[in-house]
């Protein structure tokens, strides 16, 4: 069942085209990686998906809800970690999660803190956190209520290796539990380890959409370089 649907998405800023005719979908229980070079349009696509950006054309549906027409309902169905997550600096991570659980109506705070490796620092103020810890707190806020859809924009950047491994395992478990996870990254190793499918963007267009199992370990890098390199050389 398609839980995320992007159809003919276009975003223009004056003459500059950020994304053009982007279409893909993510099924329930699937973990899809959105990859591309810097400036390929990954964040623009995710912002349009989460109602942070008005598409110039096209349509985005999250769990059957049009994000633009019903922004509140759509937000109830997805968890989102933006590229530069903002948090209440004067709350602790536990208090931040309590707020999110209050707003979303459910959530397992201790399990989520453990999943991101913040259990020992959960009662410190977020303003004392390092960049990586802030990202863990944002991830926890997005995951705590186990949303139907999880959208993560470079959310694993800056995480220490043990935490990154823990988060990847948790994301995999969420997907196996039926959630649709869309993760933008440029770390191919992450894609190979946890993603079911990869959607490649280059210059704002989808240049590849493949199951990871069909590509193979060496193939992903080669595919990335050939498809994206080709596109950049044009």
């Amino acid at each position, binding site marked *: 069942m398609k839980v995320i649907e992007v159809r003919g998405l276009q975003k223009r*800023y*004056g003459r500059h085209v950020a994304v053009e005719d982007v279409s893909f979908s993510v099924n329930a229980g699937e973990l899809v990686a959105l990859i591309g070079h810097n400036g390929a349009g990954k964040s623009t696509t995710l912002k349009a998906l989460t109602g*942070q950006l*008005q598409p110039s054309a096209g349509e985005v549906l999250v769990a059957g809800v049009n994000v633009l027409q019903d922004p*509140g309902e759509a*937000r109830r169905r997805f968890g989102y*970690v933006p590229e530069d997550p903002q948090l209440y600096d004067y709350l602790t991570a536990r208090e931040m999660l309590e707020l999110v659980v209050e*707003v*979303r109506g459910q959530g397992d705070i201790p399990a989520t803190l453990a999943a991101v490796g913040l259990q020992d620092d959960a009662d410190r103020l977020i303003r004392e956190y390092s960049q990586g810890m802030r990202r863990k707190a944002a991830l926890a*806020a997005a995951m705590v209520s186990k949303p139907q859809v999880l959208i993560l924009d470079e959310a694993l950047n800056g995480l220490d290796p043990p935490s990154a491994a823990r988060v990847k395992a948790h994301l995999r478990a969420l997907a196996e539990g039926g959630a649709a996870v869309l993760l933008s990254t440029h770390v191919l190793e992450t894609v190979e380890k946890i993603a079911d499918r990869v959607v490649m963007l280059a210059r704002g267009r989808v240049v590849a959409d493949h199951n990871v199992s069909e590509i193979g370990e060496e193939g992903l890098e080669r595919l990335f370089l050939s498809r994206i390199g080709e596109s950049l050389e044009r």
Partner: protein
Amino acid sequence: MGFLDRPDGVIDGVIGLGVRLALLCNGAMALRTYTALVRGEERPILDPHPADVPALVRYLVRRVAWEGLIWPLGVAALCWPLWSAGPEIYLTAVGLAAGGWGAGLLMGFPVHLGAVWAAESPGLAGLFNLIRGQNPQLQAALLYAPGAALALGAVGIGAAATGARLGLSGQSGGWLLLLTPWVLGAVAFWLTPARAERPYYRATLLLAEVDGALAAREDPEEARSVYLEWAIRFFPTALRPYLRQDLRHGWRAHRGWVTGAWGLGLVALAPAWSDATDAATRAALIAGGALALIGALGQRLGVSDPAWLDAWLAPPPLPRLLARGLTLWAYLQGVVIPPTLALAVRQGGEAALGFVLPLEALALGLAVAGAIAGRMRGAGLAPYLVVAALAWAGLTWGMLTGGVS
């Protein structure tokens, strides 16, 4: 408050004062509500989540009210001299101002949320395109929203003023009309939370579009250009590198002070734009205070100078000090020029000359004091403020006693 000396003018005077203060409070709260609701710190934090928007709006009203309490309290303190004319006179002015404050607070939220709808309304696109100036079309509705809130508030303030006039004339029923801004605001706000969710979320999209449009038209050349840098060519070669460095430092790191000088110059222009014999004195008092204030930029520049780089490169102290003083003096011209021109137009060249000479002497002295204070870095502020206060007091004394001008 000169109307207190004219018994037949007290009612007109207090109502005129109260209406002005009410409009001021109304405008201030209309802007504060915009900042809290549209550009507030909550938006990027809560945006990924399904925030309970009605509850958020109710919370923001309480927060903005608390943070904006300074306005009615300030008015209550400012109007205290009216108490001598009777409690009802004092309470009329304060009551009118409080009404304006309440209307701005309560109407600001629905108006700003309505502005989001208006910005996206195809039917209004033509109108906003006409009045948007150089701004992106989607921003026009947001820009004019505080004005709309002020206009709506003015309706209530007008009714309250009519009521106050009736009340002060002995018709006690008129006092009830003082509640009009509150009632209008309460009705407008009562309708708001339930309708707030969609426009609240849509505002994020709108802001992204506006910011994107502004970023797309940003001119890198303009970002690099520096206020007054063109004037460097008129100075000796040995001084130019230091002047360039100071002008760039001042403009890029402390632009608010530089534009603030012109803002304060415009404040001083108001009393100067008059045929009254004491116009120059009044303008000089304001301009002198403004010069003392802006001159403190010298110390701020000193604090933000790259200390280690200066110690390492060891630039010659005299050209460096001279350049800093010249830069400060040039910035201070923003304070001096507007009232001087106003006096020249209204009272002729001689009056303007009598005004500008002492003021330029003060500007020069403060520029030197500021530059020296900058050399003292953190320790320079207190001595500068003492010197500046003394210099301003000296100018004031001179102007009031006729010793200067």
